[in-house]
């Protein structure tokens, strides 16, 4: 047995004292650490954590701001807003599986999207509807909304990924009867709410449809653009046209609804958070004259275009570049974008690969050879290089030899001995073939230089997206094409010397030659220019060498129509044109539109008051490969001291310029100068 150990002890031993001191020191150190940490969190970084706590508990929902109106130069409303009923589904009413699925898909797709271009791989498909009960719910909704359960599921998942706590918008613009049906049966449609939203309204119908552009939730690509930096990912923006160009003025500022929520995201009742009201967008005033726009649309849609061929009309103020009218035919009703759009209808709008659809703004995005409307450029280039003088004459016998090929006027028309004015007036191809040959051998690339100087082959700078710069064929371009062809052939193991028919179809590998310049001299061949570019060229002829920047935007005004700012377009360029040279070209153009021999003389006939509103016009008939018929062009201006105008009309596959394009332009001019447009008649001239 062990002796019981006593533990009675005298006053504390030195060893214990030491150990208690160490113990105490240790405890002190621990408390000091915690105190300093507490000080750091609460006193030094308290503000930052307070902000985090607030962002934790406050959910911000946007209150949409009404977009600004778009009006024409005379205050006529082109685009305004209206309310539409929206069917929404509350995300809190969805089963957890659906939300988990959305979160998983969103993070997978986000990871895929973050990979560099070319390594992204296939888009990740959205998994199917997770529960049978949800499928039944979606199917009930789909029957009412005329869609499919899977489509609803996809929309729900997309929306949950973007903004997890905001209501999922199922359909906008629901008829009253369906709203009532859904509202009365909450047991069949749990979580479905009806709310109101702003949608665009177009009181002018199809007028100027292509210029306006649809408005809707930002796309994935738009979200990455710097111009939309700082906007919420579901912000509504203009996708195209004026709505896109002036989005920052029209957009307004969404208000903010602040909702206090608990940790599960459920709103807390009676929270006293301040809301910020939305600020309506500003009004944008366009230079368009709706009266003229309407005349242009009616003219190109009407009996003057018997084949209802596609085309475009552009009317500019040649001094300022203000666009007075711009019409692209065929057109569409822009309000279709405020409703759900089926794929088939959308495809019909965008057109097939071969033929552009009604969405396409042919005035700025389509480029074609321009036919004889190009001839003033050839004339100015020749005169400027002193290759010809105004008095130089050519004996037009209907045909001429160009290299080894004989080329002729349309229908082998013979004009006899003609000088430049006459050549423009009657649109003699022989004269301009010969001038082209001179320019090729003695001028080098003066034709290309003048075309570029006057505004072809480059963007006009109009305040609309999707402008096409067109093409001026030159040796460098031919070389680029040939190189591309050779690279393609090397890739596909086609011999470099194989005939063109077996190649890639990019180029026939021939070098730039005389034929190219001669084609260009009469606006044929590989030249591509938009109707708007031709309007800029003819503006320069009218104003004596100023290359205007066409623009639609005039002013930004407050919602109550007070001026905020004038919209500035890019400054105009000036091209030095010898006034004597210009006078020759102008003479030719005026005689062309005002005399019986002129190509468009019979369009304006004797009824048009040429002394008051002298018309300077040029027909054009462009041959396009693979098309059933030539393309009809007319470019004209009236140098009225107070209200000058340039009008360019093109109609695809419609034949001679005098026959279709010229009378349409006549209608537009007649509307502008209050002449009797019903007398505008198709011309009989068969010049190109």
């Amino acid at each position, binding site marked *: 047995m062990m002796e*019981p*150990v*006593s*533990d*009675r*002890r005298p*006053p*504390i*031993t030195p*060893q*214990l*004292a030491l*150990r*208690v001191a160490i*113990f*105490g020191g240790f*405890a002190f150190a*621990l*408390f000091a*650490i*915690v*105190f300093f*940490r*507490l*000080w750091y*969190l*609460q*006193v030094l*970084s*308290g*503000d*930052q*954590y*307070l902000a*985090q*706590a*607030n962002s*934790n*508990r406050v959910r911000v929902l946007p209150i949409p701001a009404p977009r600004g109106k778009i009006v024409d130069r005379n205050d006529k409303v082109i685009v305004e807003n209206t309310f539409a009923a929206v069917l929404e589904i509350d995300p809190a009413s969805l089963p957890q599986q659906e939300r988990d699925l959305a979160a998983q898909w969103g993070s997978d797709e986000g990871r895929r999207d973050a990979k560099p271009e070319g390594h992204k791989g296939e888009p990740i498909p959205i998994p199917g509807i997770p529960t049978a009960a949800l499928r039944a719910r979606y199917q009930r909704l789909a029957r009412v909304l005329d869609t499919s359960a899977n489509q609803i599921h996809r929309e729900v998942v997309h929306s949950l990924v973007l903004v997890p706590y905001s209501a999922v918008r199922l359909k906008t613009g629901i008829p009253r009867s369906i709203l009532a049906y859904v509202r009365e049966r909450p047991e069949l449609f749990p979580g479905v709410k009806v709310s109101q939203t702003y949608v665009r309204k177009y009181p002018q119908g199809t007028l100027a449809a292509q210029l306006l552009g649809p408005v809707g939730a930002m796309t994935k690509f738009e979200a990455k653009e710097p111009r939309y930096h700082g906007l919420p990912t579901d912000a509504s923006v203009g996708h195209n046209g004026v709505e896109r160009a002036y989005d920052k003025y029209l957009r307004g500022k969404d208000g903010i609804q602040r909702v*206090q*929520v*608990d*940790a*599960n995201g459920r709103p*807390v009742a009676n929270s006293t958070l301040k809301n910020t009201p939305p600020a309506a967008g500003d009004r944008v005033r366009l230079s368009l004259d709706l009266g003229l726009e309407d005349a242009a649309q009616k003219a190109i849609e009407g009996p003057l275009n018997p084949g209802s061929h596609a085309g475009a009309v552009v009317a500019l103020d040649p001094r300022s570049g203000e666009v007075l009218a711009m019409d692209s035919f065929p057109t569409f009703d822009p309000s279709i974008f405020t409703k759900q759009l089926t794929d088939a209808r959308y495809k019909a709008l965008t057109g097939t690969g071969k033929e552009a659809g009604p969405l396409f703004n042919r005035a700025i995005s389509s480029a074609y050879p321009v036919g004889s409307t190009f001839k003033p450029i050839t004339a100015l280039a020749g005169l400027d290089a002193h290759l010809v003088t105004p008095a130089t004459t050519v004996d037009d016998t209907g045909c001429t030899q160009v290299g080894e090929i004989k080329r002729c006027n349309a229908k082998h028309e013979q004009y006899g001995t003609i000088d430049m004015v006459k050549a423009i007036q009657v649109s003699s191809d022989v004269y301009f073939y010969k001038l082209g040959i001179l320019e090729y051998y003695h001028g080098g690339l003066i034709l290309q230089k003048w075309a570029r100087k006057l505004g072809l082959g480059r963007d006009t700078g109009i305040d609309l997206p999707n402008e096409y710069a067109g093409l001026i064929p030159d040796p460098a371009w031919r070389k680029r094409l040939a190189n591309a062809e050779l690279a393609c052939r090397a890739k596909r193991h086609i011999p470099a010397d194989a005939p063109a028919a077996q190649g890639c179809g990019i180029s026939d590998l021939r070098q730039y030659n005389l034929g190219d310049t001669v084609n260009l001299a009469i606006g044929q061949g590989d030249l591509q220019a938009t109707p708007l570019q031709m309007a800029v060229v003819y503006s320069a002829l009218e104003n004596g060498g100023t290359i205007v920047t066409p623009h639609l935007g005039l002013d930004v005004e407050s919602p109550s129509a007070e001026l905020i700012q004038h919209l500035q377009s890019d400054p105009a360029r000036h091209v030095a044109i010898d006034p004597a040279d210009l006078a020759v070209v102008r003479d030719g153009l005026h005689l062309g539109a005002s005399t019986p021999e002129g190509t468009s003389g019979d369009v304006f006939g004797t009824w048009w008051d040429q002394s008051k509103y002298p018309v300077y016009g040029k027909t054009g008939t462009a041959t396009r490969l693979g098309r059933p018929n030539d393309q009809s062009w007319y470019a004209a201006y009236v140098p009225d001291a107070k209200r000058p105008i340039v009008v360019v009309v093109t109609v695809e596959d419609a034949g001679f310029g005098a026959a279709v394009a010229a009378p349409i332009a006549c209608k537009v001019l007649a509307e502008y100068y209050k002449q009797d447009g019903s007398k505008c008649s198709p011309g009989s001239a068969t010049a190109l």
Partner: protein
Amino acid sequence: MLARIGDGAVNEPPASRLPAGLRLPFDPLLALATVGLMIASVVSLNKTTGALGSAHSFAMRQAVFFAVGSVIAIVMSRIDYSRLRELKYGVYGLMIAGILLVAVFGGVTKGTRRAIELPGFEVQASELCKVLLVVALSAFAVDRARGLGERDTTARLVLVAMVPATLVMASDLGTGLVYLVILLATLFVVGVGWKHFAGLIALGVISITFVLVAAPAVGVTVVKPYQVDRLTAFLNPSGVAGQAGYQQNQSRIAIGAGQKTGRGDRATQGPLKFLPEQRTDFPFAAIAERWGFVGAGLVLSLYALLIWRGLRILTVAKNLYGALIAGGIVAMLLFQVFINVGMNVGIMPITGIPLPLLSYGGSSVISTLLAIGLLQSIYAQGRATAAAKGRGRPF
């Protein structure tokens, strides 16, 4: 070495008309810290989880726990703790039985087996067993106090503590660590040599390496993945997905948002439940948000006072047994406060270790009050003995 004569009987102070127990003194500062923390707990629970009036509110229930615990503490403080030394085998056996009972019949709470479910309430036996370990281990240490230089002594004490520590750790790593801390504190206070400590530390490092590196390498999972998550979340809370990182983040936001003087009724992290487990694991953060640096600092000061008094009582104990019990209890409380508050402020990993007196829960509250009662008993006995010997007041 400590040579002692006589037995552990108390020398009664001069006769008085009051019953013996009531004539014993108590440490007023320790009582102040204890009462202060109990008030803080009830007030905080009342604010964060609803009115005190409701009989089933957490504040009300906590108040009941405090009442029961206080009675136990007062009774304990009037008893001479030295008698417990004779019951060491019983105490030790009770502790092991309690732990095994939980392991076999315990209900599963958040993935771990911690509590015995009785009708109406649960008993978290591992909480009470901490105090029992202090009592039993101190007794064994006193028995071996003569052989302190021997490796055998250290080994036996380690073995005595490691048995319950391992059993607890199997289901609850954090509470198991408290057992280890009690062991270390007992060895430290009893006077085990530095060499033995060095050896223990080496052993500890080896076993941790084994558990974390070697065992997973051969395919044996000792530490569960969620435990690793919790232990590493505090290093980079926003980087750790899932619960652990979220909790640590929300706790820091709550504390930081409290700033100097607190958000009062404008508090959001707690009331809107962004702060998780705020009654049990994160009560400190809830207080820090509502009452700011002032309130949280006051609570910390009360803990500091508690620890200081504990250490002071260690030095006035009438015998080694008392000093060891005091040392064990102080180490236990200090460890729990530091780990829990450290986890709240984001410098310690997430563990389920409750904050003494502030965490809601009967087992924890009653065990802590029992431990404080023991401290008061040691103080009372120490004072009484000193008075009897005619020495000056130790305080």
